[in-house]
């Protein structure tokens, strides 16, 4: 990713896939892993050998993923940025593009353009504890940050993941849980909104209630938060009540994204282009811009 500056001083990211950010580039599905009844993780690599080797992204960024003739959708990258030549998208089949994706299997070709967007502050957070808080599909982008932090484990203090889903059936990355939780000073706390008849012996309740049982320190932690907007709203209230400062809370926002390069206007959150100024924001940047029809 190369960075430039606009006249107004905003950082910009340039798509690695093509000088024309609209051009979808062919990527091949190498592997598909079922995460839940409606969500799968696809391992992809670019067809073009030079791009396959050269493509790099940072945790928190997304690609526009899709099919010429159907469309594309902004999907966060869910894999470790340190793994080169392949990358992963965890996709829930809910719309036109993602339903088409659900019909694809190994060897099939999909279109990619990216990576786009502002990443998680994994560099800034070095030396701090990491508190990752995920709700639902928000776990996908946080998995990328978590994998990076675990690979560079010595650079961080305690790593805590609070992760909630609606029901046990909705939990993603269950195959990764053991690998994550055996790491030194790494805590994984799960919750579901309701057990829904499944065999579940863990915590039941919305994500912010996990803060009551987690041992986390507001002074030494950097918070990375992603989930439905209402979940993030209540989590931030709970965090601030416990003394977490808005400068140390980072969140990944969801808005409708069509272009990825701050030129189509769909993703505006007040003056912010969520596609490029975000999706990851420092919470203090969003003061007064949230939840008011902005």
């Amino acid at each position, binding site marked *: 990713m190369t960075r430039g500056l606009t006249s107004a001083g905003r950082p910009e990211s340039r798509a690695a896939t093509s000088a024309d950010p609209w051009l979808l580039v062919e990527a091949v599905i190498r592997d598909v892993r079922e995460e839940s009844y409606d969500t799968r993780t696809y391992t992809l690599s670019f067809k073009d050998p030079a791009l396959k080797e050269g493509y790099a992204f940072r945790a928190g960024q997304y690609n526009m993923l899709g099919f010429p003739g159907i469309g594309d959708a902004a999907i966060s990258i869910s894999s470790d940025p340190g793994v080169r030549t392949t990358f992963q998208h965890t996709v829930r089949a809910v719309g036109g593009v993602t339903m088409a994706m659900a019909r694809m299997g190994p060897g099939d070709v999909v279109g990619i353009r990216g990576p786009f967007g502002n990443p998680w502050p994994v560099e800034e957070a070095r030396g701090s504890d990491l508190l990752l808080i995920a709700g639902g599909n928000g776990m996908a982008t946080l998995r990328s940050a978590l994998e990076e932090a675990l690979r560079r484990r010595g650079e961080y203090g305690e790593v805590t993941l609070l992760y909630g889903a609606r029901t046990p059936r909705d939990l993603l990355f269950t195959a990764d849980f053991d690998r994550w939780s055996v790491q030194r000073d790494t805590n994984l706390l799960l919750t579901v909104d309701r057990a829904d008849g499944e065999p579940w012996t863990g915590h039941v309740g919305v994500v912010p209630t996990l803060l009551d049982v987690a041992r986390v320190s507001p002074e030494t932690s950097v918070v990375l938060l992603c989930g439905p907007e209402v979940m993030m709203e209540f989590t931030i209230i709970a965090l601030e009540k416990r003394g977490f400062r808005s400068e140390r809370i980072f969140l990944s926002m969801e808005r409708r994204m069509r*272009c990825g390069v701050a030129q189509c206007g769909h993703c505006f959150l007040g003056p912010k282009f969520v596609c490029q100024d975000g999706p990851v924001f420092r919470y203090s940047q969003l003061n007064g811009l949230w939840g008011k029809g902005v």
Partner: protein
Amino acid sequence: MVRSKSTILIRESRAGVLPKQDLPALITLLQESHEVVAPTYSPEGRCILLERITSPRQIATGYRDHQRPGHYTIQKGDGELLFGYANGPHSPKRFLHPGRLTLFTGEWNDRGFSLSVPPKPDRPYAFFGIRPCDSFGIQVLDRTFLRVANVDVHYRARRAGAFIAVVNCTEPSEVCFCASMGTGPRAESGYDLRLTEMAEDFLVESGTGRGAAVLARLPARAAASVQLAEADRLIREAVPRMGRTLNTRNLPKILRQGLEHPHWDVMKDWCVGCTNCTIVCPTCFCNDVQDHVDLELRRVRRDRVWDSCFALQFAEMRGVNPREELKHRYRHWCVHKLGYWVEQYGVFGCVGCGRCLTWCPVGIDITQVAAEIRGGRP
């Protein structure tokens, strides 16, 4: 005024005087290497439209328009001024960022897909007769589509080499407020040639080397100081004759702090969400993409089309709409134009052309809205 039959070629000077009857010479020169776009009169639309022209005779001259919020009429004038009318609904946006544009075509094959980008237009545009607000509007659009890392290849293909021949404003309309926005009535930048219409001649000034080269080939004589002074007077006199003013002092901050101002509620029952304002605005750039595929599911095309933040589905995600209420959509547009834009690009997203007032079916006046939020007179 005494005029010599013989003309003097201007080589050094950046200002010349061109008799009005010699205006076709300028158009012919521009046509040598450009696709000329100029204001024309549309009998069907009964308004001025910017169109590609093939002959200087197609340029609308001698018309007088009358504009006010929600109102536009036009008729032939007394014949004294060629360009005595203000903007019609079209701006150069229509050519640089067309309402429908193919981003790529291609096809699926057994191994995947291949895509290609449509060829660039053959000839660069020459915009003749646009107003200073519109030439500034092009510079505003540039900031969206020609940014360092994300140059839009399609915009660049249309913008590159475009020649801009502005006509300064001496006859502003009732909806004009370019003087408030600092974009007119005299073009100060972003032009190759700027013309000022006087009683019998145009003062023609060049702003670039390309403009000077065209000026040097015109049957124009050197401008004397009396003519420079006359053109200057006509432009200065246009300022107090503009129908609107807008106080821009601290405006971005005032609007941002005024997001909960009760006046936004007025819009709930006023704005009809028709999207006209965003269509006629010379700087509104919002767009959507539409993918098309043939019946064999092989050949594909992706088009970029204008979209509008007033459309209900504009920001909608899986049934969740961050700006579900019309008052929020109006507020977003207004605060973007006059507030957020400055944070994003360092300039206002409004150039004071007045189009959104005229073409609003219910006559909403952005200058009045801004004044209400400011809490005083404009």
